């Protein structure tokens, strides 16, 4: 069974959010003096949440 159109739109919206988190925002926020370890990296956790939501809509949407 394929992905429904509504779910596809939501997944694309989350993909756009992921692009903002990973590509656009580093240009807006001043870089830290030293990059934090992955477990203290807010960008990493935000990406994880976005991917989790993409999975939710891919499976149950």
């Amino acid at each position, binding site marked *: 069974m394929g992905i429904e159109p509504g779910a596809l739109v939501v997944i694309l919206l989350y993909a756009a959010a992921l692009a903002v988190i990973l590509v656009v925002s580093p240009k*807006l926020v001043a870089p830290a003096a030293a990059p934090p370890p992955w477990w203290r990296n*807010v960008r990493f956790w*935000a990406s994880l949440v*976005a991917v989790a939501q993409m999975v*939710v*809509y891919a499976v149950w949407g």
Partner: protein
Amino acid sequence: MKLSALDIGLIIAYLLTVTGLGLWASRGIKTSRDFFLAGKSIPWWAAGMSLVVSDIGAKDMIGLAGDGYRYGIVMMNFDFVGCILPVLLAAFLFMPFFWGSNVTTIPEYLGRRYNPSVRTFFAVVWSLFMLATVATILVSAAAMFEGLLGWSFWVSVGVTSILVGLFTASGGLRAVVVTEVFSCVVLIAGATLICVLGIREVGGVETLMARVSELSWTREHFELLPSSSHPAYPWPAVVLGLGIVLGPAYWIGNQAIVQRTLGASSEADARASYVFCAAIKLVFPILLVLPGLIALALFAEELGAPGEGWDANQVLPLMVKRLVPPGALGILMGAFIAGVMANLESYINSASTLLVTDLYRPFVRPRATDEECLALGRWLVVGLLLGGALFSYQVKTRFASVFEAFQTFLSFFQGALFALLLFGMLTRRATAEGGVAGMLVGVATAAVLTATGQLYLWTAFWSFVAASLTLVAVSLVTTRKGDEELRGLVCWIR
């Protein structure tokens, strides 16, 4: 229903803990900045939990259980699409910029970006919305207390108002955040408890799904995004109205939300608080909507099929009455009271911040001292609770569910607000005249669509489209502000 001694003990223990925490947190409040922004000292985890319970509280426990019964898992989209998505965008795109512009309220930002008329308009509209929200929360509290304890509507509203007024008037934002952190934990525990007890009573998740599917009117109850012919939540309206307009407007332009991050101790903490909130929201909607489906599996005959005059607010109280044993009831009531207080405190504190910052200081007494503003902020808490209590009966009698009431109030002006915020933050070209025109056309469109009975999700979307088109058209033929004037107000000019 009578509460056992253990239940009463647990509720009193909860109230005493919250009182103690509130009093402890309210030490050292000397300025209005301490009262309204907690002296910019809130850590990320506290701001994140505070964001969760500013959004989710009594109105959601009662409202989402009722609407989960009526419509099924589509209601989870209010967090999955309407919260997590905009919160992630807000954390990385908008919040750093709000932080840098050093404003206290959203109307204050709009006033600087466009002109003072826009600031005043949205300050008045937000204050009215917050008053309506206070009324909605009081109706949720009354539904629970009426259903469980047999208190009358007005007694329930009166007791809740007095209790909340005492905390919020004394403590300001820091006391609100401290009690909200505690409330967040209690709320999750209570919501989990009712889901576990309910699933056990039904006999497991598979039995639950089978029983719900047997009913003739629950065909799309397990569709996260229902068909485009769904009567209330067709997927295009969910994606466009909720995902593109209502969600982002609420999480980027809502004073009660943004105020928490403006009170954070640093920009990095503010960003982390949003992401922490999004992570908690991955599971919270399940805990809030599931009780509605459990009620459907267990009490469908008693509660009946939703129709004219059906009251969605009765679902959760009935479940609690039937499923929760003595002792556990005390924990659940503690969780519910936590939800009521956290929600009310949050909106009342933010409304008083708006009224003092955007209306009293600019129009009534520009030279008001800080002590005067602090005192006024406290008195406004009392006034807002009184106003909300008086308005609560209207909400109770005019809407089938408190959640629907809240979203309807929001859809009235969120489209216009979001258009102004989006174009104001992202483009230099948006002009003051364009902002005023977009604001008026957006709200007028929402008024017409609401009056003609459109679904509130479509109302929000089309008012956003109307406001955006007007703003762009008028901005193209009027003169924009210079780059120096826009420094710190547009994302690309920092």
